[in-house]
């Protein structure tokens, strides 16, 4: 098995978890009510824990004496490989929910599949993670229905958020040479197969919520190869502040 591909693959998964966890942790003490505030930080905690397991494994694969924190905190902007969706800012609660819902539908499909990976470490991480992913999906799809079917205002906000984030959803199903190789080895998930399942699930929930599937078919891509949005540098500067400012310190 070629470690550099597996390393990159694992890093992408870790980056998705870290960046979404970081976005959600920005929301602490800003929730619409206390229970929901706690739910969002709880989901953030799941993702940071997931990121830690994955960075830990990536560090082992790197062949260098790297720590999980060095991977999480000390890379340059264009060396992060998360999808663009997870770095999108929280314009309002509807955006938070739309981002989570789009991501969680794909995430559940992905990790359910990864539990069957021939790579034992990834499979065992997936087995733990899939339970959390299902909870995230339940939570976010309930909110899509509530906001979509709640008041006129909430419906409008939910539809706006869906429309705004729609263009970042295709990247969730992209695969490249790294994946092609690892799929052949039975290690990676072929997420390109998930697009139609994802669309079916999203359409189903939208139907119940009275929301329409956007007709805009333009899709943005780039995160997986290190091309990020302007928001991303700001997210990283907060994330990395202490590690960068005091490189000799241990925390």
């Amino acid at each position, binding site marked *: 098995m070629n470690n550099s591909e597996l390393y990159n693959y694992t890093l992408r998964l870790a980056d998705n978890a870290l960046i979404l966890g970081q976005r959600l942790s920005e929301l602490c003490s800003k929730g619409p009510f206390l229970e929901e505030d706690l739910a969002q*930080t709880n989901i953030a905690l799941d993702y*940071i824990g997931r990121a830690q397991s994955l960075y830990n494994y990536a560090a082992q694969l790197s062949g260098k004496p790297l720590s999980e924190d060095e991977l999480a905190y000390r890379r340059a902007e264009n060396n992060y490989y998360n999808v663009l969706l997870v770095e999108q800012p929280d314009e309002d609660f509807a955006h938070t929910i739309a981002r989570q819902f789009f991501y969680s539908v794909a995430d559940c499909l992905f990790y359910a599949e990864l539990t069957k990976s021939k790579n034992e470490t990834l499979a065992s991480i997936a087995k733990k993670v899939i339970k959390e992913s299902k909870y995230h999906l339940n939570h976010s799809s309930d909110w899509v229905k509530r906001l979509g079917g*709640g008041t006129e205002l*909430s419906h409008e906000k939910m539809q706006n958020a869906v429309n705004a984030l729609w263009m970042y959803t295709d990247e969730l199903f992209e695969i490249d040479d790294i994946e092609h190789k690892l799929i052949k080895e039975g290690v990676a998930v072929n997420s390109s197969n998930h697009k139609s399942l994802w669309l079916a699930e999203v359409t189903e929930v939208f139907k119940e919520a009275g929301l329409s599937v956007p007709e805009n078919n333009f899709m943005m891509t780039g995160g997986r190869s290190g091309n990020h949005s302007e928001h991303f540098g700001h997210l990283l500067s907060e994330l990395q502040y202490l590690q960068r400012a*005091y490189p000799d310190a241990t*925390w």
Partner: protein
Amino acid sequence: MNLLQEVTSDVFQDKIDQGEYIEPKDTMPEDYRKHLIRQMSQHAHSEVIGMQPEGNWITRAPSLRAKQILLAKIQDEGGHGLYLYSATETLGISRSEMIEQLHSGKAKYSSIFNYPALNWADIGAIGWLVDGAAIVNQVSLQRTSYGPYSRAMVRICKEESFHQRQGYEIMTRMMRGTKEQQQMAQDAMNRWWWPSLMMFGPHDNDSPNSNNAIKWKIKRESNDELRQKFIDKTIPQALLIGLTIPDEFYKLDEKTGHYTIGKINWDEFHNVIKGNGPCNKQRLKHHKKYHQEGAWVREAAEAYSKKQKSKLK
């Protein structure tokens, strides 16, 4: 007081004197209820407002482990807030009324959260000193006379002692770290030490709310007794990891085994309570802002739930 009120009050006081718990459906004097609502809602609000200074550092937490611990801790605090709001609701006030009172200034929260969290060691100091002081108070409140409050405290104390340990662990790590980390730790100590001593409230001679609270066994130990416990416990912990106590007059009284300290600056204490602390306006503004911004979400959830119910009919 009419005859009926007198009888009720005697029965109530007998119960208290015999060490029985008062439960939500028991008859209780109006002043007892009011005192509890004031104290318990203040306690609940403190947990919730306390999420702000700590939340201020989640995105900048310096390691994945530290970020997870802080996220989990803040969730605990929010959970305590929920638990205390529910316990207070047993006294006949709703959470939304309590939040209105917080916003109008009628209800308070602990003044300690009007101080800013300025460097990462502040997260250590908040856990170690602020939660440490809170625990001393809350351990005592486990025996408070109102049943729901007492039970909430038992549960909350377990988690708070974990918070205090993690706070002390951060301070210890910083003191073992680089010179800059040690400076951050001492800086945090200097800023949080005196305010955490003020958390126990004025000296016993100057404490307006204490008399009835002691008689009704809402409060089981006096402000000064509790403060002394905290001082005796905390000074050796500070010295052990090499922190300096920011008080040139503190010393160990060999005869009593207790530490004595210099004068607390009560002018500062009263000033912060009046609204002039570094973050009073910021904390309340933040709470109001996100409460108002969340209104459409709460309305949507309510509207949706009504629609669902009418579908079931």
